[in-house]
């Protein structure tokens, strides 16, 4: 007796078999004459320079981490979506609280700038910067006040 997931497994088996047969059939027909030039990695005609496993943007990891959190929570919501009507308003609110917690996490990440691809530079409050800024502001204020008094007089 085939279960419904057994049928899905048949689909996957068939796909794998199809790719295998297609590649094998091509193997019987196609030529095989490797040369040194063919066997080098493609880099637009130049000789490959350095290791291809280059460092890539750290953002990819951050995106993967955020995705992980969201995906796990969404998976937990699927059973709720099927049955929440049986529990009326209570069931609905329970799911919404869950969603709100997720939303707060999202808002936090947004505010931290983790959703920007080019992340803004962290604004580290050095004491010297702070003093300089404050003195600048006060001096500006004084100038503004002076001009204002000038205008009024």
């Amino acid at each position, binding site marked *: 007796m085939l279960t419904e997931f057994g049928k899905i497994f048949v689909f996957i088996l068939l796909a794998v078999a199809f*790719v295998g047969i297609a590649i094998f059939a091509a193997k019987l027909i196609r030529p095989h004459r490797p040369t040194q030039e063919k066997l080098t990695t493609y880099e637009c005609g130049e000789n490959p320079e350095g290791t291809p496993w280059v460092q890539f943007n750290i953002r990819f990891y951050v995106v993967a981490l*955020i995705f992980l959190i969201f995906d796990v929570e969404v998976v937990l919501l699927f059973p709720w979506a099927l049955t929440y*009507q049986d529990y009326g308003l209570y069931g609905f609110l329970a799911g919404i609280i869950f969603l709100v917690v997720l939303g707060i996490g999202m808002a936090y990440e947004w505010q931290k700038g983790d959703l920007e*691809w080019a992340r803004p530079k962290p604004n580290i409050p050095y004491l010297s910067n702070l003093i300089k800024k404050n003195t600048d502001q006060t001096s500006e204020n004084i100038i503004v006040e002076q001009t204002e008094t000038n205008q009024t007089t």
Partner: protein
Amino acid sequence: MYEIINDFIQIEIVSMFISAALPLFVFILPFALFAVLAERKVSAFMQDRIGPNRVGYHGILQTVADILKLIQKEDIVAEKNDKVLFNIAPYLVFAGSFAAFAAIPFSSKYIGSHTEVGIFYIIAISSLVVAGILMGGWASNNKYSLLGAMRSAAQIISYEIPTALVVLAMIMFTGTMSLDAMSQQQTAYFWNWNILGGHETGILKIVLTPFMISGFLILFTSTLAEVNRVPFDIPEAESELVSGFHTEYTGMKFAMFFLSEYANMFAVGAIVTAVFLGGYQSPFGYIGNSIGVTWLVPIEQFFWFTAKGLFMVFVQMWLRWTLPRLRVDQLMTICWKYLIPYSFLNLIVIGIITLL
């Protein structure tokens, strides 16, 4: 269809293999042949060119010639490639995109597997494609491939969240995960389709419709991004990354990536159709029912499903020549800052309306 074949053959596993082979050989392969040509003809038409017109009448045999060429192509595995992973990747990618067809209802009589978790299963199994893409890109030992694979993976997993949220809202609305049951609910006339408020009546239907339409747009956009189509094709951006994760692939292995891309195009159309556009239901009644020939109804349903699916495929081709490619930061901004918050809102509103 499986039941009908089983009546003839009596051996379950054989009849299931035949039933599973039907969408592959009767549908996906002819569709890919047709769609590759159609894509080239549509793009030629939109750019005021002629397109392929040498092989056969107006170039209709062009794809057959392409396939014959691909079969004869030498299969180059470069010296520095990770051979095992490099060879496994096409299997994973094609298996992932073909397995999604197991839960797609082509008509009320043909669905690969009557599993209860339908759409959830499709979302889950399509993640296999990400693994295949990452594997291929990593094993290619090529900078373009690696970057393309990383971009592709980041894009697919990001856009999976809006897809899942919209699907979640639709599960709340229909109360089922099976695409077959969703299609059955949208029966009779086209104003019963989910995009126009489904089976709700009166004022609720009018309130619901704008949210359904926006849900449809979000689902279509994010599934489009999941299959790396233009305007979300930065993984394969040919002006910067040659051709992304399959730069190193040649011959039949490349053909498998290509085939799975076209299979995915139809899968997107099919999912959007089944969830929002009435599935296999006709927009008005069935001819078979009105003249009393019941066996005509499944055939009509198959016709309507394919027609809607192919129309969505045409829209994808149309978008390809309408919109420019997005930059990678724009892509992430659209997903995380616009689509996800809006689909949250959509989920809550549809949930409240369904509860009433």
